[in-house]
């Protein structure tokens, strides 16, 4: 009886500790979002989104940075999605499971944890200098693609692993080749998981600042990029730039830009959640 009561008390203690820990994160996040909203919400209007940057805070807008972010996002998707998914499929379905593949697997997971500025340095050396792409949207996208490739690969592999082997067996048993099985069974069944992973990786890429600064993204660009070879800025860099200005107006601008950036991230995460749910329903 005594030990049951003891366990109950322990259970209660852990429960409240858990509630407290969860609350820390939520409270901090809501304080932060509240603060940003108070500072920035009244600054947001259509002009703010469509104006070019300016020396005067009230005339300044995020147009070039937003366009830069969208360019970067699109190009990164085009580069990282096919490469990452193909690598994931290869490792999961074609690669033999041996010591070498084990080492490979660990290293891919490790790459996902390498600080982003290191990728920036790599991008600067390889894309900007050796490949002579300059501080262009393309160089930035290639750098960010490298950064999110490990995440895309790991997500693809996890999604493929979750496909029931019974279905894969059935396909093979009917005389399907490996590629047919991948195309008709494995990819449709894992597409929800793969898309979720890719979108989450991209929403990380859209918030990255350090590697793009290293690659040479500019704090002030008078025009939105019109081709992959143009110079560019992105939202996080614009925010960073505004926050370091002394005038109060720029702080307000930064807060407003943060709201826009958060919206982009939330929308992308929302899409990811939608795909995940839709995919789970199909398999239940």
């Amino acid at each position: 009886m005594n030990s049951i009561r003891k366990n109950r008390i322990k259970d209660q203690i852990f429960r409240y500790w858990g509630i407290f820990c969860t609350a820390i994160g939520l409270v901090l996040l809501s304080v932060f979002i509240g603060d940003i909203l108070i500072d920035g919400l009244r600054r947001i209007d259509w002009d703010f989104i469509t104006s070019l940057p300016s020396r005067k805070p009230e005339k300044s807008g995020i147009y070039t940075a937003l366009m830069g972010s969208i360019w970067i996002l699109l190009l990164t998707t085009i580069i990282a999605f096919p490469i990452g998914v193909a690598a994931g499929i290869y490792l999961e379905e074609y690669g033999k499971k041996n010591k070498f593949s084990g080492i490979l697997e660990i290293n891919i997971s490790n790459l996902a944890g390498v600080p982003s500025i290191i990728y920036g340095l790599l991008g600067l050396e390889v894309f900007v200098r050796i490949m002579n792409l300059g501080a262009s949207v393309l160089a930035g996208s290639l750098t960010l693609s490298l950064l999110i490739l490990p995440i895309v690969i790991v997500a693809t592999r996890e999604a493929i692993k979750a496909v029931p082997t019974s279905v894969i067996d059935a396909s093979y048993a009917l005389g399907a080749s490996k590629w047919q099985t991948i195309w008709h069974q494995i990819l449709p069944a894992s597409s929800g998981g793969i898309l979720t992973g890719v979108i989450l990786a991209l929403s990380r890429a859209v918030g990255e600042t350090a590697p793009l600064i290293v690659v040479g993204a500019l704090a002030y660009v008078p025009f939105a990029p019109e081709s992959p070879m143009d110079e560019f800025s992105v939202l996080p860099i614009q925010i960073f730039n505004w926050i370091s200005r002394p005038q109060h107006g720029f702080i307000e601008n930064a807060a407003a830009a943060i709201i826009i950036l958060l919206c982009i991230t939330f929308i992308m995460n929302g899409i990811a959640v939608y795909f995940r749910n839709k995919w789970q329903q199909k398999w239940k």
Partner: protein
Amino acid sequence: MAAEMEIIMEKPIKEPKILGSVIDPSLKKKPKIEVTGSKVWYGDFQAIKGIDMNIKANSVTAFIGPSGCGKSTFLRLFNRMNDYVDTFKMEGKVKIDGKNIYKKKVNVEELRKEVGMVFQKPNPFPKSIFENVAYGLKIQGIKDKKFIDERVEKALRQADLWNEVKDNLKKSGLALSGGQQQRLCIARTLAVEPSIILMDEPTSALDPISTAKIEELIFELKKKYTIVIVTHNMQQASRISDFTAFFYMGELIEFDKTKTIFTNPSKKQTENYITGRFG
């Protein structure tokens, strides 16, 4: 399974190893499947320890034996489904219609059109009933819609499912009951028109009524197909099969006409197993 193993351990095997003792003379003439000297390893573990066996065309052959005895592994030799296990290694020959299917030149996809398989758990694709049955044809590159329609209907009729699903072929295969799903899987296999159908405990996940339906079906199908079935259900083996093979610890202990195995087995181990004294 652990308990099962313990009981087995207590009874040392004294009888000599008999490898593929084929008693029925009809089996020696032009067998559909002919296995000689088959040995299988998964890494260091030897799952099949040298088995010879002939399987007759248009018959039902049942594989029985305790879990882990190698009967499923042996069954999967016939359509090379073991190939996907990374540590799988094999010696010996498996001939189907006189051709060794483990030769390098053999096209595994072609082989599996000839040797269909039905699994333990019903595993329809998350597609419509029609698409499930048509899958095997579509991956062969067949595009003739009329041909596919006819084959799908024929296969569903053969699997005794047509009347239940003919009005909603577009419904998801996963929406069917367990027994219907398994018959859908059988129809899917039949649509490719194989000559051999392997069944790996096809009724172990089904209720008695669905099981009875599948058993009737097997009885019907044997007129056209050669059927090899793994089962844990002794009554099932005795009801539906013409020949029965008893496996134990990777060896073929006894292989004979089902009637002989169940009424007058020549090995003590077989008798112990079928009377439920172990396993």
